[in-house]
């Protein structure tokens, strides 16, 4: 019993530390529902820190290609995200008509994009810090850097 308790404490402590480290930046949530035949339904929930951690393991040739493709947009994206972090709770864009609703805002330091239309629903929630990490890493690994 004592041995089991010690093992449990060790395992629990490790899991807690790993969990706290992984969750420190929050989670990325992506929900896509297309209401048509063959429409896709994607529901994804990923710890934000895991994404930037995983990027370190992406082969450099793939990273170079990705940053090459995004080369023009990266400085703009980086500047937008860096500035948006100063505005953790702000409504940026809202489009409403009789059957659609599009909302882009920052909420609790996360970028939130909601699209509610009769044929599809898209909800994306991503911590700005994670987006900043991703764009910074892409910029660092670009061929020009």
């Amino acid at each position, binding site marked *: *019993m*004592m041995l*089991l*308790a*010690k093992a*449990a*404490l060790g*395992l*629990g*402590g490790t*899991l*807690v530390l790993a*969990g*706290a480290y992984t*969750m420190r930046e*929050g*989670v990325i949530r992506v929900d896509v529902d297309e209401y048509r035949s063959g429409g896709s339904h994607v529901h994804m929930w990923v710890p934000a820190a895991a994404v930037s951690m995983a990027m370190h393991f992406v082969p450099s040739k793939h990273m170079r290609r990705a940053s090459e493709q995004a080369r*023009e947009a990266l*400085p*703009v994206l*980086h*500047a*937008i995200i*860096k*500035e*948006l972090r*100063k*505005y*953790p*709770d*702000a*409504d*940026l*864009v*809202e*489009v*409403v*008509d*009789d*059957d659609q609703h599009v909302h882009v805002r920052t*909420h*609790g*330091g996360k970028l939130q994009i909601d699209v509610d239309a009769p044929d599809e629903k898209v909800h994306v929630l991503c911590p700005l810090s994670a987006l900043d990490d991703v764009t910074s890493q892409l910029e660092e690994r670009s061929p020009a850097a």
Partner: protein
Amino acid sequence: MSNLSRRMSSRKDVMSNCSRGLLAKSTLAATALLLLAPFGVVAQSSSGSSKSSSTSSSSDRWLHVRVISSDAKGETVRVNVPLELAEKVLPTINKDRIHGGKVKIDNAHVNDVDLRALVEAIRTAKDGEFVTVQSNDSDVRVAKQNNHLIVHVLDKQNSKRSEVEVKVPMKVIDALFSAGKDELDLVAALHALSAQGDTELVSVKDHENTVRVWLDSKNVTD
């Protein structure tokens, strides 16, 4: 004596077993608590963040655009942009005519009008009406008033009246033309705009759309 020591020793064993079990149970409970703790922390942080108010300071200036369409779909568009964000992002855009926060203008686009001289003339002129056109089709008025350039157009054609009013502070116009020849300094104009008080810049009203562009310190549209 030996009976007493034996009794004490057996009591010690019982206590030892008891405390060992208690310790093991409490260790298991602590482990379970530790395992559940991150979820609590995540839940707390998310509820905390939802409660937290905006940290953008009152000195932040926001540019708002609102379009309300009164057609069958009743579309409403609201865009709120922090001026500081626009100031920082514009210089990073290098596409076509926009470079380093400045936009190039060709002579062809201004029909050989020396815009710089025109702006200088308006800037040094006293307040007053520069252009007034009144006809059956439309009324046009261009004036300088309280250091603002005002353009007012009233279109009276086809019974579908539309009204456009543009009101730009002179300091913003000065900043816009502060760059070199044949270019407009958008970043300088935005910077000058951020120093202005709450003001309405553009207002368009016609039979099916209302457009309003204004500047204030609120981070949400009213």
